[in-house]
């Protein structure tokens, strides 16, 4: 119930703003009038009573503003005001707007490009079945021994094969010479 009625008055505040405003104005003014009446019947002169009533009220506009700040949906109103203010400012400072747009554009563009490259080169799994079991084989010739290097393209989860050196190490010569 609380949420429903808050939602309803929030929508009312947004879409029938003029009516809500004029009711608020009338309400606060009638309060001031009645306070004035009260002071007149307590023996004050008309103008004195009016002045004293307005002082006690603390200003009609201030009271209305205090109510507005507590309304449901105020934040949408404020957000909209800020957006319009922002657009006006951007329109006024063309140079600043251009600089900001170019900076943002370059920044976002560069970041995206670098990430796409890094992603496809380093992060994305290879497009094969069981990609973590892929091996690369290479022969390396060192004086006196021949090393067979092999290792998965990507670090394997099992940890039994490390990247750099195989458990097989062959001595002597191998292959056609």
């Amino acid at each position, binding site marked *: *119930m*609380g949420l*429903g*009625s*808050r939602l309803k*008055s*929030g929508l009312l505040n947004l879409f029938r703003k003029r009516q809500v405003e004029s*009711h*608020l104005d*009338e*309400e*606060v003014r*009638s*309060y001031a*009038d*009645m*306070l004035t*009446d*009260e002071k007149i019947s307590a023996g004050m002169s008309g103008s004195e009573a009016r002045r004293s009533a307005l002082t*006690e*009220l*603390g200003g009609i506009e*201030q*009271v209305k503003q*205090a*109510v507005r*700040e*507590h*309304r*449901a949906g105020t934040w949408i109103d404020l957000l909209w005001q800020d957006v319009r203010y922002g657009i006006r400012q951007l329109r006024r400072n063309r140079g600043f707007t251009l600089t900001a747009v170019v900076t943002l554009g370059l920044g976002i563009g560069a970041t995206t490009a670098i990430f796409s490259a890094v992603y496809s080169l380093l992060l994305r799994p290879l497009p094969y079945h069981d990609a973590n079991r892929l091996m690369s084989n290479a022969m390396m010739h060192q004086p006196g021994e021949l090393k067979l290097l092999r290792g998965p393209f990507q670090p394997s989860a099992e940890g039994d094969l490390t990247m750099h050196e195989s458990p097989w190490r062959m001595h002597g010569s191998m292959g056609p010479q």
Partner: protein
Amino acid sequence: MSPTQTNLLQGTLELLILKALVPAELHGLGISRRIEQITKGTFLVKPGSLFPALHRMEEAGWLSSFWGESENNRRAKFYRLTKAGERQLGSETEHWTRIALAMTNALKST
């Protein structure tokens, strides 16, 4: 003013408004005067806090409002308690009584 103080006062004001509206529907000034009367002049509610509270409470569904004529023929907005408002008054009264009792006991202890 610290936030806790404000919260306490806000809760108190809402409770007093609910209580003030039990016997009859009243307009803003009427509510002020009624609160002054039932608290024997301890609380003077300024319109700057009364109206925001009334509108907030109406939005919460505790009060409903309508336009009517005041005792000296001025058009005024009157407020009355809704069913939800009566329930709220019940639960807040209970809450307040518990706090008041606890505070009194705490301050009496040595």
